């Protein structure tokens, strides 16, 4: 072949030292922040999570209406899990709320227990 890919591909803007990896930002020599598509993928990642069909029945009275809310959100978004950005936001809110209630520990704890009836999948734990 008379032309090689290096002859026609635009030179990289930065000096990439190696190939991209499937679980890493693009190249060690890449720009300091991930690309827009990488950010989008990270923020809206819904894996790992349980399938929609495995969410417990909303009619379970012990779980209350929040499970139904969770299931409804997943249906609206057509995903099998809550996006990572929501996990982060909810987890931060729960964490901050917990810190504020330290001064009123007795009442606060019982209030927290009822408020934290959130399923683990809803970010109660703050995991990303």
């Amino acid at each position: 072949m008379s032309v090689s890919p290096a002859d026609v591909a635009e030179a990289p803007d930065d000096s990439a030292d190696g190939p991209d990896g499937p679980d890493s930002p693009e190249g060690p020599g890449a720009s300091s922040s991930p690309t827009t598509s990488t950010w989008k993928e990270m923020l809206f990642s819904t894996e790992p999570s349980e399938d929609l069909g495995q969410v417990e029945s909303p009619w379970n009275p012990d779980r209350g209406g929040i499970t139904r809310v969770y299931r409804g959100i997943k249906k609206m978004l057509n995903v099998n899990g809550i996006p990572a950005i929501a996990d982060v936001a909810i987890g931060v809110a729960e964490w901050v709320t917990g810190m504020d209630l330290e001064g009123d520990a007795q009442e606060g704890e019982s209030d927290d227990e009822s408020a934290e009836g959130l399923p683990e999948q809803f970010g109660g734990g703050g995991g990303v």
Partner: protein
Amino acid sequence: MSDAWTDGYNMAVLGKTQTGKTSTTRELHAESPRVSIWLNGSGKDRVESVPGETVQSIDGLRRALANNSYAVELVTSDRRAMIVDLQTYLWKLADRADRDLPMQVVVDELQHVAPQSNSPDLPHRDAVRTFAKQGVKRGIKFVGITQDPTAVDKQTLRQSEYRLIFEMSNENRTSSVVRRMGLDWNAVEEGDRYTGTLHDDGGNVLERNVRASENYA
């Protein structure tokens, strides 16, 4: 390699799951003298062991090609969006190369990227149609793999010069899409397990017992 594997005409690879389609195409991707780009899904949708440099975006592809990589795995969670960007980029690349850089694009589970649909507004399907209909003129060979040819955009399938046929379900064999290909089913059935039979678009058999080498299986 015969001309079918190296020339610029499109190829459709059809057959049931676990019949050898992907292994054979992996070897084609690795061994082809053309610059070969495999558009792969991510996570559980990712085809394993695709040879070559792995990138995650068009920018990454650009860097890989600037480093003279001839086999590239382009991994993305949204192949439908990426195929549109890929088509745009490769058209520019082909023009820059004055159409003198032989390239190849490989898409597994083609029915997910170019589904058969009457909807007028499917940019991913249209991008694949563009590859299939106009890629040859730009030196870009399109290789599509599918278990279900009835679910693939008919216009795209029709543009395949070569059909590599593996064992297929009876439902697909008797579908109008496949019957119109005029394939030699005797030749397909006489083939060994995990081998394919290569046809041209006239239904003539070009090669029998096409099979991946051990290191690609």
